[in-house]
C-alpha cells in the first residue's frame, strides 16, 4: 500500500524507546518533567505535585487552570496537543473536595499529565471550560455537567447530553444521588407515560433559524395553541 507511512516505536529523535512500565511504585518515582516546568512558570498556582502509580498529578488553583492548560497546549517545550479526558471525582467522604480532572497527552514528547482542580465543599460547582483550546472538550464537558452538575464557564452549549433536557432528578454521579434514582419507580413510570414523545421531535426546541415558518401547518397550530415541548 503506497498510501501508508510506517511508524516504528521510539523513532522520535531524542526520545527513549517507550516500554511497558514495570515495578511501578505506589507513591513516588519519577515525575513528569512538565510538573517542574509548571512550578517554575506558575509558582503559587501549582498547589501540589504527586506521583501515584507512575502517573503525575498536578493540583492547580482552579482560577488559573485555564491559563495553565493553555500554556501546556501552546508552549513548544510542552505541546500537550491532545486532551484525553475531562471528568470529575467526588469522594464518599463529603468533607473532601470534588476534583475536576483533565487528562492531557503530549504526543510529541510522549508525556501523560493529570491536572486536578479542587472544588471545596460548599463552593459553587464551577470550572473553566477548555473548549477554546480543545474542541474535543465539547461533549466531555457536557457529560461532566450532565453527571455532576459542574458548570464549565465559557462552554458555548452547556446542556445535558446523555440524559434528556427535562430530566429533573438531579445529577446522577453525585454521591448524594441514590443508585436507583430519586423518584420511585412508580413516579418514574408516571413521568415517562406523561411525557409527550412528540416533544423530542419538536422543531422549536432545536432553535433552527427561520424554521418556524417552515413547520407544517398543523404543527404550527399546535405550538401556537400552547402545546408544550416537553418542559
Amino acid at each position: 500500500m503506497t498510501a501508508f507511512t510506517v511508524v516504528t516505536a521510539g523513532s522520535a529523535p531524542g526520545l527513549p524507546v517507550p516500554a511497558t512500565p514495570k515495578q511501578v511504585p505506589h507513591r513516588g518515582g519519577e515525575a513528569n518533567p512538565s510538573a517542574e516546568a509548571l512550578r517554575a512558570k506558575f509558582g503559587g498556582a501549582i498547589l501540589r505535585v504527586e506521583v501515584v502509580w507512575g502517573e503525575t498529578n498536578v493540583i492547580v488553583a482552579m482560577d488559573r487552570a485555564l491559563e495553565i492548560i493553555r500554556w501546556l497546549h501552546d508552549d513548544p517545550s510542552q505541546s500537550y496537543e491532545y486532551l484525553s479526558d475531562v471528568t470529575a471525582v467526588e469522594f464518599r467522604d463529603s468533607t473532601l473536595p470534588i476534583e475536576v480532572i483533565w487528562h492531557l497527552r503530549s504526543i510529541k514528547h510522549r508525556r501523560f499529565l493529570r491536572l486536578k482542580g479542587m472544588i471545596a465543599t460548599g463552593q459553587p460547582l464551577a470550572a473553566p471550560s477548555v473548549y477554546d483550546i480543545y474542541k474535543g472538550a465539547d461533549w466531555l464537558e457536557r457529560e461532566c455537567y450532565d453527571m455532576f452538575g459542574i458548570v464549565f464557564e465559557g462552554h458555548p452549549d452547556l446542556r445535558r447530553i446523555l440524559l434528556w433536557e427535562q430530566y429533573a432528578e438531579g445529577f446522577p454521579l453525585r454521591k448524594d444521588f441514590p443508585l436507583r434514582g430519586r423518584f420511585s419507580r412508580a413516579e418514574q413510570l408516571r413521568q415517562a407515560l406523561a411525557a409527550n414523545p412528540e416533544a423530542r421531535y419538536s422543531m422549536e426546541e432545536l432553535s433552527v433559524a427561520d424554521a418556524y415558518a417552515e413547520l407544517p401547518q398543523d404543527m404550527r397550530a399546535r405550538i401556537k395553541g400552547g402545546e408544550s415541548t416537553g418542559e
Partner: protein
Amino acid sequence: MATKRTVEVELSTTGIGADGRPQRVPLVAGGDGGVALQAPPGIEPDLEGEHMLINIGPQHPATHGVLRLVLELDGETVVRCIPHIGYLHCGFEKIGEYRQYNQIIPWTDRDDYLNCVGNNIAFAMGAEKLFGIEITPRCTVLRVIGMELSRIISHLVWMGTTCIDIGAYTPFLWSFQERENVYNLFEGWVGARLTTSASRVGGMAADIPDGWLDGLKAFVRSFPKTLDECDRVVTKNGIWVGRTVGIGVMSPEEALNYGLSGPMLRASGVDYDVRKDFPYLDYETYDFEVPVGVHGDVYDRYLVRMEEMRQSVRIVEQAIARLPDGPVNVDDPRVILPPKHKATSEMESMIHHFKNVMEGPRPAPGEAYVAVEAPKGEKGYYMVSDGSAKPVRWRIRPPSFVNLSAIPKMVEGHLLSDVIAINASIDIVMGEIDR
C-alpha cells in the same frame, strides 16, 4: 430569502492517481460528443432558499444503534447537524461505584460490545495497577492474543456494516463468517461468545484449553485470504471510491484538536497509537507497523482499518510463537481465589475464598488511568480507590463518544448520502457512547 442556485451535475468515473491511489475522475464535456455537465439556463429550476429539517434515527439501521441525527438541509446539502445521544444510557459508571473490581468486569463487556475481551483486559489492567500487581508472562501473551482478536472482529463488523451502508452486501457475509470463527475461539476459551468477561484482576478467567492454539492457527492462516478477497472486491470498486474518497475530511490539526483517536486520527496522518507511544502488555517487543493515512477521508479510514487487521494477524502469529508455559494467574492471595478442591476441603481456603468473594480485595488509596488502543481509539479506564473494596469513581473514556462529537464538523457541506458514509466511518458503538 429566496436564492437562486445552479444545479451542478458532476459525472465522474474511477481512475488511478499519480500516487497509485484510486480517485474520482470527472468526465469533462469536450467538443460535440461530450457530456453536458450543467443543465441549460432555461430549464434551471428556481429553488426557494428553504431549509429542510430531517431526522435520522434513533431507529434507523444506518445509524448503527440508537443515534439520532437532526439534519438541516439546503437541497441535499447538509447545513447543520445536531446529534442526540443517550438512548442507551444506563449509568455504568454509577453502578461501578457499587461493585467490587471483579464484579465490574461483566459491565465492561457491555460498554463496547464489539470489543469485549479488549475491554475486560483493559479494565483488569487498571485494577492491577491499583493493586500493584505484575501479571505472569503467559497471561501477558494471552492478553495480547485476546486484544488483537477483538480488534479483528470489531473491524470486521465495521467493514461489513459499512459496506452495507454504502451498497455492497457480499463483504458483510464474508466478514461475519470470519467473525463467527473468532467467536468460536472465544467460546472455547471462556465459554461465552459475545459477553465474554474473559479477564480477572490478576489473570484471566481461564487458561486456553488443549488444542485451542490449533484453532487459532487455522484462523490466522485462513483469515488473510478473506481479507484479500474483500480487498479485491471493495478497494478499487468504482462505487466505493466514489462514495468515500474526499468525504468527511479532517486535517491532522483538526483531528488532534477534536480529540479523535484510533483509525480516525491515524487516517488524518497523525501517528499516534497507544501501543507504540505508551506501550502496555509488552507491545514494544512485537514487530508490527501502524498504518497512517494521508488524506483523512472515509477512504483512508477504510484503508487504515484494513491494514490494521493484517497487522493484528502478524501480532497474533508472533504471540503464538512466543506463548510461554506457566501459570496464568498471579500468585497473590489478595485477589486470586484458592483452587476449588481446596476451598471445599480445607477450612483456611474456604475462609479465604469466602472473604475474597464477599468482601472483595481492597487496593490501597490511589488512582490509575489505563489507556489501551481499542479498535475505536484510545479507550481509557480511570479508577479511583479510597481503600475500600469498591472504587470511588470508575470512569470510562469512550473513544467513539469523542470521535462522534466531531460529526457536525465532518458532515457540514456534504450531501445527505455522505452523512451515512461518514457516520459509518467513525465506527460508533452506542453502548460505549451512552454507557
